[in-house]
């Protein structure tokens, strides 16, 4: 019964994290009484559980996630949406508009191939295909703004503890952000320079996700960039 690494050390797939009775948490697997890592990341020994905070990981859809997707195809009564996951998602007509589906309905008038949507994963069907909905407050077709992609596993870093990071960024820049759990972020600013600043902030957060004191450094960074611009 022993731990093999210090807490928050960087581990790679195949590293033995623990030997003995413990629950295998996120991004780990158990074999022959040992717990191994499956992703590169920071190991975390919790109470009765060992897990890895992945530094590189793809997006796996879960019910309740807000995602940003691109319409890639249209079927009878449904749109096929790319959500940066291993499988495309489906948006059915009843989940997209309040009016009932009729043969007269021209689906492309509402959403066409190439359109961008902010959607919510409401269900996974029997084949684990994500079912989306765009009914509700912040959801729907996106008409303007800038989309940047980041590693989906680092999205929690952009949000911060209880939203501390994102609320700080919003307060300092006055922009609107829609953060998709699938790693796509929609930025809507009044001014082009602010959009570029936020892109740089996101790149910085992505690069330094595994370090501590990130919120303070990002705040300093915003102040410094502001200073440069005002000179």
């Amino acid at each position, binding site marked *: 019964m022993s731990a093999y690494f210090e807490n928050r050390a*960087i581990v*790679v797939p195949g590293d033995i994290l623990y030997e003995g009775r413990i629950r295998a948490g996120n991004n780990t697997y158990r074999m022959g009484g040992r717990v191994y890592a499956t992703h590169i990341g920071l190991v975390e020994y919790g109470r009765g559980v060992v897990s890895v905070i992945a530094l590189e990981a*793809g997006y796996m859809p879960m019910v309740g996630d807000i995602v940003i997707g691109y319409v890639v195809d249209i079927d009878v009564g449904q749109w096929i949406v790319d959500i940066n996951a291993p499988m495309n998602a489906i948006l059915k007509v009843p989940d997209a508009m309040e009016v009932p589906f009729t043969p007269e309905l021209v689906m492309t008038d509402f959403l066409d191939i190439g359109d961008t949507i902010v959607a919510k994963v409401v269900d996974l069907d029997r084949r684990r295909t994500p079912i989306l909905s765009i009914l509700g407050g912040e959801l729907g077709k996106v008409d303007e703004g800038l989309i940047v992609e980041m590693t989906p596993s680092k999205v929690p870093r952009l949000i911060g503890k209880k939203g501390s990071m994102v609320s700080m960024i919003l307060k300092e820049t006055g922009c609107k952000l829609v953060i998709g759990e699938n790693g796509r972020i929609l930025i809507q600013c009044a001014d082009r320079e602010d959009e570029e600043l936020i892109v740089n902030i996101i790149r910085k957060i992505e690069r330094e996700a*595994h370090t501590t004191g990130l919120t303070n450094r990002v705040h300093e960074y915003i102040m410094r960039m502001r200073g440069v611009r005002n000179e």
Partner: protein
Amino acid sequence: MSEEKWRRVDGRAWNELRPIKIESGVLPNADGSAYIEMGRNKIIVAVYGPREMHPKHLAKPDMAVLRCRYHMSPFSTHPRRSPGPSRRDTEIGMVMRYALEPAIFLERFPRATIDVYAEVLQADGGTRCASITAAAVALVDAGIPMRDLVAACAAGKIEGHIILDLNDHEDKYGEADVPVAYMPRLDRVTLLQMDGVLHPDELRRCIELAIEGCQHIYELQREALKRKYEEVVEEVKEGE
């Protein structure tokens, strides 16, 4: 001549690897990527996925499909080679797939595909092993769940001497070549080929020697994967 004094064409000792440099995350547009230099071999590997499989009929309902493309650039050899995929390219793509499949949790992504593209920019013998080594790093960089890394290297025989990590000359003029891919933490061999003639005892010694080489390469893979993040940590410390 004693085994200690005998030197190979490039001056290496019998159990010495070529100098190896591995770098992860070199291609911004790929989901994961790696670059390897193993002696004069230069190979770049890109990984895409897991993503929707096209054409759809190739998808498996219970697991992801791993597709590997190995390709040698026309300028990678002397004389220039034909740019199209050859019979050999197809075969090496297949053995790369066989070597990497046991390390990946393919069953977690039904109906999807993971695509690995290995492009040999410069070749000097042992490119299939170097491609597998780099592909494993690229797969981790793509965030694909893995049981273990896969390290690969060859052993063989020339002028009666058992040697590690053959270069092009030793591969062509030697008696035998044994490429081995190996998962170091799980202690599993995932690729074993043999070209040439060896006594069973010699084959055993070749495999043991190649596994030793793989263990050394494994350490370099780990360093390459961690380096990207450790550099940032140091940079941040300096800034404070």
